[in-house]
Structures are given as C-alpha cells and as structure tokens.
C-alpha cells in the first residue's frame, strides 16, 4: 500500500502533532511515537481535535472529582 500522500499523528516532545509521510521519514525514529495513519491531512486533523476534546473531558472530570473530595 502506498503511504506517500498519507498523514500521521505522532507524539513528540509530549505533544501530539500531524505530520506528512515525507516529514515523518526525516525524523529520528527514537524521537517520536507513531500513533496513527490517515489518508489525508484533514482526516488526521479531525482525529487530533477529537483526541484533544477527549483529553479535556477527562481532565475536567478529574478536577471535578478532586473538588468533590475536598
């Protein structure tokens, strides 16, 4: 399968980011964690925004739980 025009979500320096295949190949494999592959930049961006949404929801829930316990 040809991945040339696809995009990836990676975890690098504790940040999630979208990179193209070309950009990925330039990175040292030990400096990032490959999360997922997507057909297009748009698809990857949609997923990235969902990931952020879910992590914010989780964080808010943790804060609420902490408030309740005090």
């Amino acid at each position, binding site marked *: *399968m040809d*991945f040339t025009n*696809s995009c990836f979500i990676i*975890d690098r320096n504790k940040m*999630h980011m979208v990179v193209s295949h070309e950009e990925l190949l330039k990175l040292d*494999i*030990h400096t*990032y*964690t*490959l*999360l*997922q*592959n*997507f*057909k297009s930049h748009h*698809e990857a961006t*949609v*997923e990235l925004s*969902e*990931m952020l949404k*879910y*992590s914010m*929801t*989780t964080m808010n829930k943790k804060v609420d739980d902490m408030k309740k316990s005090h």
Partner: protein
Amino acid sequence: MNSPTQLKAGFHGVWPDVVTPVKEDHSLDLRRLESHIRTLLYKGASGVVLFGECGEGPSFSYDEKTQALAHLVKEGIASNAMMLACMGSSVPEVVKLVHLADYLKLNAVLISTPFYFQDLSDDGLVNYFDFLFRQIAKSPTHCYLHLLPGKMHHELPDGVLSNVVEKYQERLYGIINQTGSSSLNNDLLKSFGEKVLIYSCAESDIKILHSSGIISAMANVIPKVVQLLMQADQGVQAIQIPGMKVKSSEDRLNEFQAVLAQHASIPTYKYLLSQIYKNQAWKMARPPLSHLDSISITALDKAFAGFALQANLE
C-alpha cells in the same frame, strides 16, 4: 508441516483479526476503523480480517458489514488486503456475505459453522455445508474453513470435518484453527495436512505449524512482535530492536499474554488501543459487550505499564 508444492497457495504474513471500533451510540466508527487498518498495514501487516471473532462479527448486520467494506475500498484500502469472516446463523446470510466478498474482490472468506441454539447432528452439519457450498460453487474468492471456540459456534466433529474437506477440497484453501486448542493443530496436520493448508490463530503455535501466515488478535496491538515471530520461524534474521526491554519476540509475546490474562479479550484490546492511540473513544464496545470496569482498568494499567510498549517498534 505443510508442503506448499502440493497445496493451493494460501495467505502469507500477519493478518490482524481486527477489532471493530464503535461510536458512543454503538454505531460503526468507519473513520477509526479505516485509520486502524492503515496503521496496521503501515506497520507491516500483510492484510486484515474483518468481522471475525475479535471484530465482534456476530454483532454486526449484513448492511453494516457492506457499509464498512465499501467505505474501506472507497478510501483506498486494497481489496486483496482484506478477508471477511462470514459468520451467520443461516445459509442465505453467509452466501450473501460471500457474494459481497466476490463483488469487492476481497482476498478471502472465512466460513464457519452456524450459530444455533440446539444440539446439531452430524448429518445436519454436513447438510449445512452441502447447502452452503452448492450456493457458492461459482464464487472465485478463496475460501477457508474457520474453526471457532465451542462457546461461540458448534464444534465440528471429526467425521463432519473429514466429510467437508473430502468433498470440498478443490474449493477450500485451508483450515484456520481459532478454537484456542493448540493440540488440535497436530490432529489437523495429521488428518488434512496433505490436502489443505492448516493455520492457527494462536501466536504461540507458529513454531508448531510453520505456516506461511497467521490471523492474530494480538497483532492489533503488537503487530511487529508477531511479524518477528513469523520471520524467526522462517529463518529470517530477527530484527534487533534498540532499547527493547526484552529482545526475544517470544518472550515479548509471553509478557503480553500475561497482560491480557484475566480480562475479557475484546474490551481489553479496545482499552489497550485507547491507550496506544491516546483516544478514549476506542474503549466503546457494542452491546452485549461492555467496556472494562474500573477494577480491570486499574489492573491492566499496572500490567501494561510494566510491559512498556514501544509503539513504533512493536
């Protein structure tokens, strides 16, 4: 050991038994399914099996399977990199799935025994396969007999299995053992090894069968470890992974099996994917399955932290 010169050419490499992601409303999550498959193929999987045991096949309708496959083909997943598990409770339903695979030119179909709520006689099972194979006689898609655990499907008695293989040897490319019984492999090899290819879905059976490929549930999470096991069995120099805590793929597999033990398998795979892909949406399961309880999650988190997954390399 199979002798490929006398047998049909079966599938090669690692084919993850892909888990099926669902949304909060329990409908199919096509975008996430496509991305998961792309990621597995990028990591070296030869193809994927859709709606199999790990993919909750019985929980999805014919229409949903059609929708998913059409979406994947449309979005550029190669048809010959997909197999469809045709699980069903009636012959017409299974025939429709085989015809769907024909239409989409999929790599292969996996045919299993029916779900049923009563004990079935040997004659009844033989008649089931006769009825089925008559209707798919002209199907060009490669066909594998899929043996599943007794808790899911009726186990095929030896006599019925012999009958089916004998009658449909020309049509069958192989038998796939997903019963969870490793001892069955030797019996299958002894009885049918010269007629059809024998595959197992247990990663630890690679050494026993020396088969050209494997359908693996664990490959959803650690595709490269399973590939390394296959390569090691085929005499290919195993790739040394820098920084890997345990370098032997077999040890790594055993470690991962220890993580999985004690938990319901499909919700566990979904939970682990939610950790790997950093998205809690992966935890959703379609009823009658439910996502893992908090006690299991705490235990899994602890075990998985010890496993120290290296997502790029495994």
